[in-house]
């Protein structure tokens, strides 16, 4: 069986707690898609829920609000990993329930 659990933990720890240009608080908020004001919050929400609808303007608006490209790179990565993680963990929990004895 392929096992991504350790590698997944390492990825999440790296993007949230490792060295970065964006603050750790901002990375955590992007990961959880919470507590971020517009326009960054709008972009993060789109990445999490409807990434195919992200536009050039969404990104340009966040740049104009003062975020540099490296901050944006990190925060978008955190938003994508955060949403995929929530889905993965919800599904694994459902699988555990489905296979529980008794």
């Amino acid at each position, binding site marked *: 069986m392929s096992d991504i659990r350790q590698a997944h933990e390492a990825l999440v720890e790296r993007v949230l707690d490792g060295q970065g240009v964006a603050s750790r608080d901002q990375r955590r908020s992007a990961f959880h898609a919470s507590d971020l004001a517009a326009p960054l919050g709008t972009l993060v929400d789109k990445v999490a829920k409807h990434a*195919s609808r992200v536009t050039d303007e969404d990104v340009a608006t966040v740049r104009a609000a003062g975020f540099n490209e490296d901050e944006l790179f990190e925060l978008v990565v955190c938003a994508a990993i955060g949403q995929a993680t929530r889905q993965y963990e919800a599904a694994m929990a*459902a*699988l555990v329930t489905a296979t529980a004895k008794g």
Partner: protein
Amino acid sequence: MRLSVLENGHGFGTKVLFTLIRAFSRQPVLDVIKLVKYRADFYGGPMQRITQEAMRGPSPWSVGDRELMAAFVAKTNECEWCTRAHVAVAERAYRDGTRVSQALSDLDGAPIEEPLRATLRMLRKLTREHTVSADDMRAVLAAGASREQVEDALAVCFAFNTIGRLADAFGFALASPKGFEAGAKYLLARGYR
């Protein structure tokens, strides 16, 4: 791409690597490679370990099955870049383009095995609705998929729910059919390292 650092912010060694890739493949460097090679210690390195394990690690699913799952998750997310890229890999892995196109266009009627069909159905719900229930999982298990197969499919789903979001958010430029074919050949020969 929407961030210029992802186009040309790489270090000297990576730029040399890109020159070699262009020379060897006779195709432009795919945007996904530019992403994973940019500040690779932050995202590309840790993510490649997950993707390699999910897509090429030991599993009851074949490489073709897992590439089909990747394409299916991408299509559900309306991520055209990832859909085209992984349809190309799945078709090459299966040596059967019809199987892939039918699974993507008509899951219920496609000529695929029931455990795979039920698994793809669950992945579609998870990707669309962001969650699934224990009953959804019971349906997959009842169709003949093992717990191990479900866990492996969820690993693929995690990888492509991440990568697809980044492809769309960063605005990956679509490659030509030859560019995606070159990428598919590479991924089958070398994996995601």
